[in-house]
């Protein structure tokens, strides 16, 4: 797919089917034909190439993909965090308003109480020169107009809520004095401090030990249930996604290649990429022979191949796959796949 085509018209195979499926109540978030590209010295490079999906209040969606698949960029775009030389097109409707093109000040009304985000690197996400307490209270005082004392109480409550022991004493501590897990809990506390209706978590556990991961994931799920906020959980790990999300969108080369209920996809992937992804993960592989890395290397964003983006790495690719790009098709009411051979893959999973 040439970048030119991206610019001139909506990408083919946009996910309108899902819109139709979800058209009961007004969705919390509706993303339409989201495309993000960046200017580089090698020309424009597309990171996200026409992503559409909707999310209902309280719903939890995992965006799954390798690094470079565009999943993180999608997450950032939802918060208006893409800066020049990046460019965002399409529509991001949050509570019915398209935030694409809004200026910072207007975006700031949504950021926080509307949408909030937890980043992968908790160490980098906290300002090293301020105590965690002051970072939380700053937010509460600035955004909610609380006075110093109330903000402090609320900060302690938040820290307790995210499971930080001895919260009161730790207010004065600096980020570097916290362990990785505790730091990520602090980040979560900050992210939920303004009671967002949508929380985007961008690989929040990737940098953590496995034992700590579980705690964070439990916390995220628990918070999501308690506060009834919607959740977009960006990860490369399907097993992790399964613990926190009910829906999953698999991204490859800037597009959603498969979408559906998480358990369903986990059991019966309908795209060869999803299947390969599952096989590459130790905890989903059923035996050593199943555990294998995906052949080939992730696509080079600057030069997308014609046809299906995955075909160079696809074990079942046919001639058609090298020339014709597949649409995201509905396989069932809640199942979408962008593969010419989706049915075969689905059947093979049985």
């Amino acid at each position, binding site marked *: 797919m040439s970048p030119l085509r991206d610019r001139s018209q909506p990408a083919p195979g946009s996910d309108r089917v899902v819109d139709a499926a979800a058209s009961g109540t007004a969705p919390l978030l509706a993303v339409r034909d989201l495309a993000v590209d960046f200017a580089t010295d090698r020309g424009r490079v597309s990171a996200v190439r026409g992503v559409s999906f909707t999310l209902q209040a309280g719903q939890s969606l995992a965006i799954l993909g390798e690094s470079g698949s565009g999943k993180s960029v999608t997450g950032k775009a939802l918060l208006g*965090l893409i800066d020049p030389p990046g460019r965002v097109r399409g529509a991001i409707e949050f509570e019915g308003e398209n935030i694409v093109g809004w200026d910072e000040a207007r*975006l700031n*009304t949504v950021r926080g109480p509307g949408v*909030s985000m937890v*980043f992968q690197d908790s*160490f*980098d996400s906290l*300002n090293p020169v301020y105590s965690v307490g002051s970072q939380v209270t700053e937010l509460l005082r600035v955004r909610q107009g609380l006075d110093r004392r109330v903000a402090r109480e609320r900060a302690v409550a938040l820290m307790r809520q995210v499971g930080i022991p001895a919260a009161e004493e730790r207010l004065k501590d600096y980020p*570097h004095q916290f362990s990785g897990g505790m730091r990520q809990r602090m980040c979560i506390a900050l992210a939920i401090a303004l009671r967002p209706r949508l929380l985007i978590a961008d690989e929040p556990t990737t940098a953590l030990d496995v034992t700590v991961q579980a705690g964070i994931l439990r916390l995220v799920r628990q918070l999501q249930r308690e506060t009834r906020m919607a959740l977009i959980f960006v990860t490369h790990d399907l097993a992790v996604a399964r613990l926190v999300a009910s829906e999953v969108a698999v991204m490859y080369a800037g597009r959603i290649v498969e979408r559906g209920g998480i358990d369903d996809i986990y059991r019966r992937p309908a795209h060869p990429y999803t299947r390969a992804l599952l096989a590459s993960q130790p905890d989903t592989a059923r035996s050593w022979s199943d555990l294998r890395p995906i052949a080939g290397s992730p696509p080079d964003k600057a030069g997308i191949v014609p046809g299906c983006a995955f075909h160079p790495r696809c074990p079942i690719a046919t001639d058609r796959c090298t020339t014709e790009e597949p649409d995201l098709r509905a396989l069932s009411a809640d199942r979408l796949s962008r593969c010419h051979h989706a049915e075969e893959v689905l059947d093979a999973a049985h």
Partner: protein
Amino acid sequence: MLIFLSRRLVSSVIALVGVVVVVFFLGRLTGSPAHLYLPQGASQEMADNFNRTHGFNDPLWQQFIRFVGDVAHLDFGTSIWQQRPALTAVTSVFPQTLLLAVVAMTLSIAVAAVLGCLAAARRFGPVDKLITFGSLACASIPDFWFALVGVLFLAVHLGVVPTSGQSDLSSWILPVATLMLAPVGVLTQVVRGAMIEALGSGYVQSARARGLAHRRLVYRHALRNAALPIISVAGDRAAGLVNGAVIVGTVFAWPGIGTVMVDAVLNRDFAVIQAGVFVIGLGIVLLNVLVDLTYAVADPRVRVS
């Protein structure tokens, strides 16, 4: 932190004494300044006399031992030229230099902070390019040349500032501007770089994701972090200010350590040279301690480790 500081302080002072020793021997290499202080046609007897009075004809090791003994109780000897204790000769003018340096550095940091932030906020834009080019140009101009052109233009042609000397506030403009030239050039680059890094960092990004206003991001979150490299480079540059003070002293006859040291070198006034080196060195050592302390205040990570 305190242990670290005190250890550094001790080793710095040892280094400083080393400097003074090196300067001592360097000075002795030039030989006795007898001819400078004695009449034309002075007899050998007078020269010997002069050397005896000032201890120049003792064996070098004896001179050195005496010197070390004196320095141990901060006695740097008497200035041949000024006929008063060398340390007094230096300390009486050092505050002048210090004041000038502090003013110049403070203004440099302020100007650099403003320009650097501006450039960082408008990264790659024309404003950024202008500021970057300008700051590099600042760092590329010979300071004495700038000073002289300044005198010619501002003092002689326009008459808005005095040519030289220290009098009212306007007499500060040219010396301070001359001293600021290099630091502003370098610091603007540092501020810009540090701000770009800080603004692109995860904590600013995540603070932004929480909807904090841009101003707050720049001035509370980014600037405080960007201050760290600024502090250290500014500290480093402070030593260079003494170089500038020499130029400013020569061109503007600005009172201070610069002129005294140059005159001391010209007059072979070893006692003053040694005392001057010691005082300047001590000043810079203390400045480094101050920088470390400021750093510790600005960065909690340093404080704890």
